């Protein structure tokens, strides 16, 4: 990497990091896994004056359950998620998504927090977190705030995190019994951004009625997108071929993909429909299993 010149800081506490953030303002970038930041620096799309490496800050690397909340620390690596038994037991969607994120080397470094904080609709975790109704904990010198995922993304590479703040944790509500979740993306080859990706979480009660539906879409909209109409089409109803088809159609209609080398708009909309259908099936199977 032949990046432009930059300063490197490695604080050992959040307070130290906040001090540095105040010093450098917009000119600082947080380094966690680096797998989005470093390619941008390599291409000189990003030339931050200072890199603040948060990897030496203790307490950000755990996956823990506290009552009804599953907490994922900002420095939790994708590879850690792959082996987190309790998380995977309740949220099988994480087994689906991590194995679709690049390759083992990337997963050894890349973090879930960074995947969200980068603010890119092409990343996979935004859609997953939308399906799970997660929240993001953002900390600054003046305290912390908890931001629902639906209010987290603002624009391309732009999130609710202010220049003097750090994403410290992701909080996911524990699901009700008989909940299942699933994710898949079409990719041209391993490591590619999604042609389209769909994340689904469903809860199905004893009568076979869907009581909860969360559906998030990857890389088919300028911002990470929750397929709200598709969710509404399922909640309160039985999961049948008809309701699934309706939900898939809404997702296909409501997304707003752009044409690129992966395919034209028509293809991407069709793929959102196909994947929504398949992921609802898979999540429903897992919910009753």
């Amino acid at each position, binding site marked *: 990497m*032949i990046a*432009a*010149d930059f300063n490197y800081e490695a604080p050992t506490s959040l307070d130290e990091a906040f001090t540095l953030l105040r010093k450098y303002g917009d000119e600082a970038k947080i380094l966690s896994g680096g797998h989005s930041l470093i*390619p941008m620096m390599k*291409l*000189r799309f990003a030339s931050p004056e200072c890199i603040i490496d948060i990897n030496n800050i203790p307490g950000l690397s755990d996956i823990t359950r506290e009552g009804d909340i599953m907490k994922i620390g900002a420095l939790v690596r994708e590879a850690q998620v792959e082996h987190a038994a309790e998380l995977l037991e309740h949220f099988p969607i994480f087994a689906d998504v991590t194995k679709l994120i690049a*390759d083992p080397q990337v997963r050894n470094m890349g973090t879930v927090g960074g995947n969200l904080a980068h603010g890119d609709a092409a990343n996979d975790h935004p859609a997953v977190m939308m399906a799970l109704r997660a929240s993001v904990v953002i900390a600054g010198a003046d305290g912390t705030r908890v931001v629902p995922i639906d209010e987290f993304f603002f624009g391309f590479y732009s999130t609710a995190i202010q220049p003097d703040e750090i994403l410290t944790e992701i909080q996911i509500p524990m699901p009700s019994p008989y909940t299942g979740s699933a994710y898949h993306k*079409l990719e*041209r*080859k*391993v*490591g*590619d*951004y999604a*042609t389209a990706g769909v994340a689904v979480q469903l809860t199905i009660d004893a009568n076979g009625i869907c009581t909860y539906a969360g559906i998030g879409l990857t890389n088919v909209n300028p911002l990470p997108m929750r397929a709200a109409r598709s969710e509404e089409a399922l909640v309160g109803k039985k999961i049948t071929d008809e309701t699934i088809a309706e939900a898939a159609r809404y997702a296909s209609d409501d997304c707003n993909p752009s044409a690129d*080398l*992966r*395919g*034209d708009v028509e*293809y991407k909309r*069709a*793929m959102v429909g*196909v994947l929504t259908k398949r992921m609802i099936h898979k999540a429903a199977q897992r919910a009753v299993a």
Partner: protein
Amino acid sequence: MTQVCKTSKAIGGMGHSMKRKEDGRFLQGKGNYVDDIKLDGMLYMDIVRSPYAYAKIKKIDSEAALKVPGVLAVITGRDLEQYNLHWMPTLMSDTQMVLPTDTVMYQAQEVAAIIATSRYAARDGREAVRVEYEVMKPVIDPFKALDPSAPVLRTDKPGKTDNHIWHWEVGDKARTEAVFASADVVVKEQMHIPRIHVASIETCGCVADYSKVNNHLTMYMTTQAPHAIRTVIALVAGHVGLTEEKVRVISPDIGGGFGGKVPVYPGYVIAIAASFLIGKPVKWIEDRSENLQADSFARDYHITAEMAGTKDGKILATRFKVLADHGYTDASANPSKFPTGMFSIATGSYDYGTTFMEADAIYTNKPPGGVAYRCSFRVTEAVHAIERMTDRYALEIGKDPAQLRFDNFIPKEAFPWHSPTGWIYDSGDYEAGLRKAMDAIDYEGLRKEQTEKRAKGELMGIGISTFTEVVGAGPSKDFDILGIKMFDSAEIRVHPTGKAIARFGTKSQGQGHETTYAQIIAEELGIPAENIQIEEGDTDTAPYGLGTYASRSTPTAGAAAAVAARKLRDKARKIAAYLLEVSEDDLEWEPGKFFVKGAPEKSKTIQELVFAAYTNHPQGMEAGFEATHYYDPPNLTFPSGAYICVVDIDKETGEIKVRRFVAIDDCGNIINPMIVQGQVHGGLTQGIAPAMYESLIYDDDGNILNGTLMDYLVPTAVESPNWETGHTITPSPHHPIGAKGVGESPTVGAPPAIANAIVDALSPYGITHLDIPITPFKVWKALKEKGAI
């Protein structure tokens, strides 16, 4: 036929799967690549590149760049013009700018060079150079390049009035037209073999080290052909004093070449010029994007392919018309007399009477090329055309494509076989190869399964490719590059203690020459391969040769090694006769020793005989134990293969899964089966690449749309199916060890097998052809257009 090892495992001659001698250093990270070379006082170069495909340079402002700490100089075309170094010849005797003085002709073209004291300062300097351009409308679509309204791009060539480079044709036009006019069945497809890139792991680079004191240039560089490069440097820069004896080219370890490291790129010349002017070593190493965007592409042939035949499946004639998009200059690396390389092998493995082939090459505002990317020379294009059309014909008449091939193969009794385009195929047994592949994959069972799946609306396809390669260029009567004949060389020196060093005019880029050449010499001399050191790549020490590409190393330098070793064995026989006090005719050879006929206890080992050559040689005999041979092959070699691919396609998404891929190769006698298998694995993966993933794509303004590996999709282990490999052995009758070369067969043979399988899966919906790379989107779109989804 099967191959039997004639030597013990301890000697490790031909047929032994000995581990690669070079892997010890590679696996421990101890290889020595160009970027590992560090010299005292070394400076670093970076290159400003054009953001536009076609533009006039109005001004290059270096002021800010020269203020960047560590930046020493900014070199432009005007600077090189003072030394007449701003233009250089291509290997096809076309011309290419080193740095432009007036106009840029493609995106990513070199515009200026920065020389600095560190790699980082050089890049910072590059960012600070300001260039003003006057943008012009480029010629991108090759079909519009010959339109009278298209701007003439090569205004540097006096009298040039269009964008046409050359016309080439071969075959019997009148007879072919007559056959087509009267044939029962004629099939025709327009196909594009996409513009792709070798994308070797190591990019290109060099360290140019000019010593003013000695008036001597040492050029460390990533080149597949160090000797040819030395001669080219002397031809280009002789007028400033760099004559050939003052130039030493060293090609250290190379991380993949695949044809992309044959040409001379402008960066090399600029680095030499900079070192020459400054008197310090200058290192230039491309980054990945520069490599992908600016270095020579491969392929980019638009082919109108036609086949004529009978209703029951006898091929009668073929016709191929090519439009070759060479970009800004013809920077191919073909033998001089072959502007389309060996494309005329496109009659394939089939016995029919007539063909006519023609090609027109044109200029566009794209990077220059095209190099021979693991394809001998344009054989990939040829094989794709003939193998696609063979399946197309089978589909047209409703005949099984395997049976159609059996009905048309050149019979094994017909070799040596004279092709309608003038090749003399040395040997082959195509029927045996296809039969073996069909048995390995259970062809009949697959066809049954396909019938059942089709009844259920599922998409499964089976594709065959039975190709003939033409490699080992080549006989000096026909083959030269810039006038230098395409022989190759070996020099063997055996030390008094019976250990050897051998040097070659070729240059391995990962092929395993340090092992296979040693095995050839071990086979002939009985000296253990472990005790034979192989060296290549230093023009001061190695004998002259044309380098490694076009699967030519084994057919040429490998043959030279065998012949040189046989000269030494003849000398050993003379020494043995002297020591054993018998006539030479009374001696018999077994690997490693001569013994007296009928008295095997009276023997001398090769080590004893070599020692005697230094200590007790017969009076009148020249002392020492050395031999050199320059091998001029009497013919090319013609490896072949039978590949069968099975795909399953997801109808809703268009995703293609290669379920199985069986590759039966025939490369004649095998030197090291493990290395051959490795070559085939790598080549098949580079075959699946253009078939399903890779293609350099430009928009109408000449902007590359996939100029990084984020979007230029090089397949990985995840995309690679489980390759099932095997072989038949039909030795080359004219090659000293019966070998044919294998490096390129899989790259050549795999794409049509995959394309044929995919089209076979889609054929129930009336789809007869899809251009590679065949992506999920392309499949889905085709099914949609046919109303299948």
